[in-house]
């Protein structure tokens, strides 16, 4: 057994056993509280630049399966677990997780007091960290300190597709969606193709004109890693698309839509990463349990020009701002997070555009919010039917 270490930029060190490939890796350390779906999490491009701590103690139990990959590679910089399974027990598994991690050249430290680490992140915030074996803890702390913070960093350019590509629906064709790839997950593309839409995936820097030239029935803004603010090109492109074509955004796509509308975003202390976040819909109070993975959040109040209300007790949906003026007409907050009251969704009243902070495609996580895809494709389906 080889000793592995995790060092945080604030000098805190955690001990474990190195079980992945040799080497040192650095990035922002975050924790994910999902109890299933490690493979989907590992391959989610939104984790680019981050080290994932799984709070669930046993990881790898059911192995890995190609059909669960969200991308071709593991985007996380490194992985921290309490216990990594030696075997893969599932009729679907085609490779044990240990082999999978090795194949993807991932640094892994196991046997860590992940709960201590999680509590530390909760109290001190997500921060740069370095992990590795065969290394002095002081050296590792220095590496962590030298690692840049996520704020202001453009991570999208490292995960977006370089080429435009098309995935066609296998069923009866209902229409065509252009998806901006800021780090798109495969299950999102599948959510459209399974509903009868061809999906043209375009690079993050695609202009509005280029997108409109593809004659989409709707444009989708994908999830992706890191801070939305530095992404000026996509924000500009979105402004060019709003009102021209229906727009739907998820996660980073939601944040980019908000920025395009003139709202602001800010960094959360330790983000939302898990599969149990309650999100309430303003219109009828219904609550979905949602999958989430983001370190930044949208502030719609800045757009309204009024103070963010101070929260007392449980999150209160009367605190969701509505009817806010924007350059694109009125904007409504549509959803909020019941844990911390943060914004979870918005919709434009005068044009066809809406977005949510959480992941209706789940993968991993609950399927409660799947209907959002139906809502979008029904809108654009109707529009394209009208056009014909």
């Amino acid at each position, binding site marked *: 057994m080889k000793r592995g270490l995790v060092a945080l930029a604030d000098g805190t060190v955690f001990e474990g056993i190195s079980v992945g490939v040799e080497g040192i890796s650095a990035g922002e350390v975050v924790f994910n509280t999902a109890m299933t779906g490690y493979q989907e999490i590992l391959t989610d491009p939104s984790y680019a630049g981050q080290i994932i701590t799984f709070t669930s*103690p*046993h990881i790898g139990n059911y192995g890995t399966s190609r059909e669960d990959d969200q991308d071709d590679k593991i985007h996380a910089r490194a992985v921290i677990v309490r216990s990594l399974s030696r075997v893969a027990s599932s009729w679907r598994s085609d490779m044990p997780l240990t082999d999978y991690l090795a194949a993807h050249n991932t640094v892994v430290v196991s046997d860590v007091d992940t709960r201590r680490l999680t509590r530390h992140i909760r109290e001190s915030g997500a921060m740069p960290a370095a992990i590795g074996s065969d290394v002095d803890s002081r050296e590792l702390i220095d590496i962590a300190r030298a690692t840049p913070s996520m704020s202001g960093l453009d991570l999208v350019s490292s995960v977006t597709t370089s080429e435009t590509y098309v995935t066609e629906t296998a069923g009866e064709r209902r229409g065509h969606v252009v998806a901006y790839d800021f780090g798109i997950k495969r299950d999102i593309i599948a959510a459209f193709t399974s509903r009868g839409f061809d999906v043209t995936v375009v690079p993050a820097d695609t202009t509005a004109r280029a997108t409109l030239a593809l004659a989409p029935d709707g444009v989708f803004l994908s999830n992706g890693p890191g801070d939305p603010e530095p992404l000026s090109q996509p924000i500009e492109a979105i402004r060019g698309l709003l009102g021209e074509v229906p727009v739907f955004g998820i996660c980073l796509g939601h944040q980019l839509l908000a920025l395009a509308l003139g709202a602001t975003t800010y960094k959360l202390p330790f983000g939302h990463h898990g599969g149990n976040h309650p999100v309430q819909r303003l219109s009828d109070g219904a609550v979905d349990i949602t999958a989430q993975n983001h370190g930044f959040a949208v502030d719609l109040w800045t757009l309204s020009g009024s103070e963010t209300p101070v929260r007392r007790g449980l999150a209160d949906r009367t605190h969701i701002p509505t009817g806010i003026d924007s350059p694109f007409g009125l904007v409504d907050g549509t959803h909020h997070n019941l*844990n911390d009251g943060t914004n979870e969704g918005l919709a434009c009243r005068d044009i066809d555009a809406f977005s949510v902070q959480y992941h209706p495609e789940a993968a991993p996580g609950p399927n409660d919010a799947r209907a959002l895809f139906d809502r979008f494709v029904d809108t654009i389906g109707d529009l394209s039917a009208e056009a014909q």
Partner: protein
Amino acid sequence: MPRRSDITSILVIGSGPIIIGQGCEFDYSGTQAVKVLRELGYRVILVNSNPATIMTDPEFADATYIEPITAQSVAEILRKERPDAVLPTLGGQTALNVTMELAANGVFEELDIELIGASLQAIEAAEDRGQFKELMDDAGIATPRAHYVRTTEEALSALEDLGLPVMVRPSFILGGGGTGLAYSAEQFDEIVSNGFAASPVGELLIEESIAGWKEYELEVMRDAADNAVIVCSIENIDPMGVHTGDSITVAPAMTLSDREYQEMRDDAIACLRIVGVETGGSNVQFAVDPRTGRRIIIEMNPRVSRSSALASKATGFPIAKMAAMLAVGFTLDEIVNDITKATPASFEPTLDYVVVKIPRFDFAKFPSVDPVLGTSMQSVGEAMAIGRTFPEALQKALRSLETGRLGLGADPTEHELESVSDDDLLLALPVASPVRIFEVAEALRRGLDAGAIADATAIDPWFIDQIAETVGIRHMVETNPNDPEILRTAKRFGFSDAQIAYLWKTHEADVREQRSVGSISVTYKTVDTCAAEFAASTPYFYSTYEEESEAPPSGPKTVMVLGSGPNRIGQGIEFDYCCVHAAFALEETGYETVMVNCNPETVSTDYDTSTRLYFEPLTAEDVLAIVEVEKPMAVIVQLGGQTPLGLAGALEAAGVPIAGTTPDAIDMAEDRERFSRLCTEFGIRQPANGTALSAAEAHAVVDRIGFPALVRPSYVLGGRAMRIIYSIEELSAYLTEMYGATPGGEVDLSRSPLLIDRFLESAIEVDVDAVFDGVDLYVGGIMEHVEEAGVHSGDSACVVPPPHLSTDVVAEVRDITRRLADGLGVRGLLNIQFAVQGDDVFVLEANPRASRTIPFISKATGVPLAKIATRVMLGESIAELQASGVLPPTTPDLPYTAVKEAVLPWTRFPDEDTMLGPEMRATGEVMGLGDSTGMAYAKALSGAGHKVPNEGSVFLSLADRDKPVGAEIARTLTDLGFKIYATHGTAGNLARHSIATTHVDKVGEGPYDPLRLISEDRIDLVINTPAGGKARGDGRLIRMAANRHGIASVTTAAGGLAVANSIAANRLADGAVLSLQDHHKAILQ
């Protein structure tokens, strides 16, 4: 929607006595529910026949009815109380069944009462298998594939469709006759042809077999706004085919990928919607084919359940409390998560630890059954453990069970498997049993193929590998004595110091010392529902070996209460009740309390019962570790039964202050020699007795003290150890049976000396519970047993006030109690069992601790004895408590009679002889209250589920010694118009008393065969007392037949007379019911 204001009063139905399959989890659920409903301002009316529950404490409801949970008595309560609503989903199957019966009788309609929590339609849809299957099929949720067939051709085409193995179930048959699992075409042909013959309608259901599939449960909550959350997923280690109550289970599910888990989650929520469970918690069970992932739904329970109690303890999410709130109109997002205080209940708990539950069995008490697990639940209790990993939780759970195991092997008991050959071990593995987990570990230790073990057991390979990894660590420990790094690793895999000491051939203290040198110390983590994502103030901890401990700094005025561990026969809910009362009393008087227990079913392990809860095994190592952190000023060991008493010595040796009576005084009461000397010194009579180390000594002792004699080994060797012996021949047979004869015919008693007492025939047994503070004695109550001495006190009914004791006897009982309390140095509770023969009072035993009767006597007299005792243990005097009005000046004179009746698990064990004896076999108890002993007893019998007839025929067969009482029984019953069937001897005796009977034949002879009379429903009551020592023969067959046919059966003469009198009283009853609160008010008037 917030709290409903259109209803103001709610009746909550409890679950009645503890029985196999329905344990004290429903007290935990019910207590949570009544607490929150009252906090919300509703008038709460409660019905529950079980006095040992916290929920029936008079302060928990506005009106508490300790009445039988029958349609008749609940209807009476409803008519009297006129509640606006009935909440039926918290009292297990009992509450659902009585609710359906009341609905069928039109009572709810008649009184305009609303059902909340689950509608009648939802209950019916979930309970009716056919309807449920249809609903699920319509919704696209898979159920087992099946075909109804009426011809051999149809059967063969069904087989072709389903493939082997298949389950064949003949339609409309009783008791499963003709049902079978076919693994081959030949077997199939045979079962099918037998099946057609067995089915009265010539129809078979041919169903795919799901034995060996993986089994899962999801605990779902749904609110009136259709928000639904999964509180917890549970995976059974034992596959389909073993009842989930008898399976080792793990939370959260360990071997489902996200895709599969989410699909299961979708199905579970859809199932609640389709069945129509509008609000509350439900349990949905699934089976998954490990080869293909195909998932089918097995069943759903539209109510809180054993699993939901487990899920609540496993996650910190209080399901029953939430269910009650949802039932009165709240939605999940309106309820604050108690643990974070800042987030709502509309979320799904996420775990950063592993929970393992292991059932506990008492097969030794029921020799008629093999210890093999199947689809019918047989366990009597369970232990739960929390660890950061599965191996740690598994090992902690195994040592929590208190079955003598230190963990997953690595203990002296593991030698039992050493002599088993590899082949035999592999043959044993497919059979689910309480020891299979050890067999798996042993097979892995021997290096047998893990794949073969997984195949043989149908236990998921992941669990097998985790066990293999643990066994690997064991090997490392074994081969590297005193290695500090390996010691640390072993601790992280849940090995106890005792296991490591065993492997290193050293003492536990040495391992502890090595841990201290290596700074390998235990840490405590919080159960917080959210994997540390949010700050939590939950005072709920478990131990593990990690870098950071979250236990708070110890408080200045902390008292620790040690709980009673898993329920078992002889140590059940009554002791948990006492521990909970201690926590309440301490909180009321300004102490911080720390509860240590490992039983997930209990109120004591609710995290808001005490200031802090440690969900931990009750072993010296685990408890001392908590003591180190909490630094309590005192530890209470006398309330949790034998479990904490067994730890008192180790605690005292470690310098831990014990509250109240000292371990030495406890030892004095338990050590026969010391106790006998004390009795002699104080001039207190005991039955003549002796101890034998050899057969010759045993004969000498019985020569001296005479027959009949009560004998038992000093250490129980298994089986029904205690027996009443009437002759030398019986003594010899007993010795051979218990100890096994050597080749020379000699019997070796030295391992476990034989304890012999003169058995006092026809004596009245009396139980006393009292509190002593060193100066004053408060007698809680004097209880007279219905059955004679010789029947275990836990199996006999008892009555207060005592109907047959003279004033002199009562005075002497009080006097002896006082002298023994003083002589033993009791500070706190004292229970004494007496035998009264005529005017002679003998002491059978004294226990300076909480007894099983504390809850009953507390409820009967309105004085909470366990609370009083707790305050006395911590230094308050009885005089002070009396002066401040906490305690009445004298034992209250009751203007009514209270009867406690034991509840025995005969329906679970149809081949068991129902004869009562000195070995306890009751699983629970009920209480009856009435104006007379007869009335109170009638209610207790009804509460216990006995179908005592008001008229009809009685079968009477009595041992010679019981014949005088027999005449009285027969006279009472004939006066009531009963027809009496009697055996030869009994009939002759009754004829001499001019009582006419119908003479029956011996079993198997003649037209009046008692077994035939029973099977033809011509007998309504059986009173059969066995002749001295002879448990076999006709009597046994008759008792078993009565049990199978659900006919009330009495096995003692005193019990028979009490039943006869209760029938007389019941005939006169007007059905009126009175709440416990009103009963208590009558004491004061």
